[in-house]
């Protein structure tokens, strides 16, 4: 190996970099910053995507919504019976949920009603709720996410909350628990209470529900069952788990796509500048190449030396950029960039981005930066190196 790599050429390349210290420091800084930004965005996107995909399997296979006049409409609860009759359906539950706009804070709470708040969900709830004096109260009670709790406290609601019903009267519901901090990314804006309470707050009749969730045990049957439901209820919209996964993919492709597009523009600008600078090589640099050729360097020696030069600068920038991005995103939790993904909600979750080592991102950024930079430095030198030495020096 030692015979293959010419250390004198590397040494020469290092000295060449040091001769133009300030120019190269400037280039390296810019490149590092670009790589840092792009890698950070990809890291954040990947983490959120990972978080989403980790929990998507816990969702029901099919959601049935009723569409009337192009809008979502309350579905009849007796539809569950017909759906349950389809072979392969394990469970069909009419669900009641919705958004409650809390005007004082300008936020939307997501209220979900669960069946048998006292019985069958008790065990499950116990595992995800921090305080355990659940269901001791006879009154209406609810379990809230930590973001909801905080918002309520800021508005002087400590142990209970007054929901304003559609007719203007108040409905008092006691807070009996807060969801575990680990689930904050999912539970931050959630309120879980009994179905009867949700119906009262949204003024929904017993025979109506928001949508119907269907559980199917065999994933291969989902598509067939979905089409059967569609046949029975032509006015319904069937959302399968697969649709949700595609929709997730769309959101994140869209958001990180915007950044990739912005980055590509800035990267191109950067390389145009590099290329322009290099192709209008200063007469000194031209003469350098000419002299090297005159004292016996071959074209490939010159190109090798230029390759080392480009590689050292771009690889250092790449490594520093990636290291900084990993620290910025996972150790410091991406202070400013995270806001781009979390939107401008008042009900902000202060979540930790879960780490996922993504080799694909590292390779993508690597091939977007290092080879292109090297090419941008080699090509102009090659143009000059192929000329006759005396022509260049003169």
């Amino acid at each position, binding site marked *: 190996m030692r015979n293959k790599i010419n*250390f*004198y050429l*590397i*040494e020469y390349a*290092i*000295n060449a970099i040091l001769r133009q210290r300030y120019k190269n420091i400037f280039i390296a800084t810019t490149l590092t910053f670009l790589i840092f930004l792009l890698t950070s965005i990809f890291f954040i996107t990947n983490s959120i995507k990972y*978080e989403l995909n*980790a*929990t998507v399997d*816990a*969702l029901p296979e099919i959601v049935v*919504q009723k569409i009337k006049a192009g809008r*979502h409409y309350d579905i009849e609860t007796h539809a569950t019976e017909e759906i349950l009759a389809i072979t392969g359906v394990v469970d069909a539950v009419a*669900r009641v949920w919705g958004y409650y706009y809390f*005007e*004082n*804070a*300008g*936020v*939307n709470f*997501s209220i*979900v009603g*669960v069946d048998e708040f006292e019985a069958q969900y008790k065990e*499950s709830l116990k595992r*995800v709720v921090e305080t355990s004096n659940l269901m001791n109260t006879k009154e209406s009670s609810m379990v809230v*996410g930590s973001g909801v709790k905080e918002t309520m406290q800021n508005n002087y609601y400590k142990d209970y909350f007054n929901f304003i019903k559609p007719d203007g009267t108040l409905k008092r519901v006691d807070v009996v628990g807060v969801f*575990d901090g*680990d*689930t904050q*990314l*999912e*539970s*931050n*804006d959630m309120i879980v209470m009994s179905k009867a309470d949700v119906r009262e707050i949204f003024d929904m009749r017993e025979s109506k529900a928001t*949508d119907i*969730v269907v559980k199917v045990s065999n994933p291969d049957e989902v598509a067939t069952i979905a089409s059967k439901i569609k046949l029975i209820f032509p006015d319904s919209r069937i*959302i399968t788990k697969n649709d949700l996964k595609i*929709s*997730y993919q769309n*959101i994140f492709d*869209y958001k990180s796509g915007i950044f990739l597009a912005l980055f590509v523009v800035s990267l191109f600008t950067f390389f145009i500048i590099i290329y322009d600078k290099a192709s209008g090589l200063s007469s000194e640099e031209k003469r350098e190449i000419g002299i090297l050729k005159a004292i016996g360097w071959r074209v490939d020696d010159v190109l090798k030396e230029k390759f080392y030069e480009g590689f050292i600068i771009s*690889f*250092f920038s790449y*490594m520093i950029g990636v*290291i900084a991005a*990993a*620290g910025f995103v996972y*150790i410091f939790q991406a202070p400013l960039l995270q806001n781009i*993904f*979390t*939107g*401008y*909600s*008042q*009900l902000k*979750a202060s979540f930790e*981005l*879960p*780490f*996922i080592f993504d080799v694909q991102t590292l390779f993508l950024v690597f091939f977007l930066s290092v080879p292109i930079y090297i090419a941008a430095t080699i090509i102009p030198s090659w143009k000059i190196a192929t000329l006759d030495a005396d022509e260049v020096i003169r």
Partner: protein
Amino acid sequence: MSKNLYTTKTPKVLLSLFALLVFFAFETLYIFSTKSLDSESLEKRKEFVSIVALPDLAISTEATFIRHRSMSDLFSIYKDDGSLREYFVSTYTYSHSHKADKSAK
């Protein structure tokens, strides 16, 4: 030693490259051990999601469709035009809370 007589800077540069790689490996290891999702908290999340059975994350909650976006309008991405994708403020009229932010008009 004499081999390096004329190439004194090369070992330094190679060494620092190597040091960067090692540093990156250690950083990754550190983050991996401290910030990965442990199975317990993952179970909790799954438990929670199976209770409420709603998709999406609570990362943006001001507009109703952003939080269960995939539930509230799955069809409207291409509603008007294949290239038009809705995003909050541009395609929705949404009343800002005047109580929360007094400066807003």
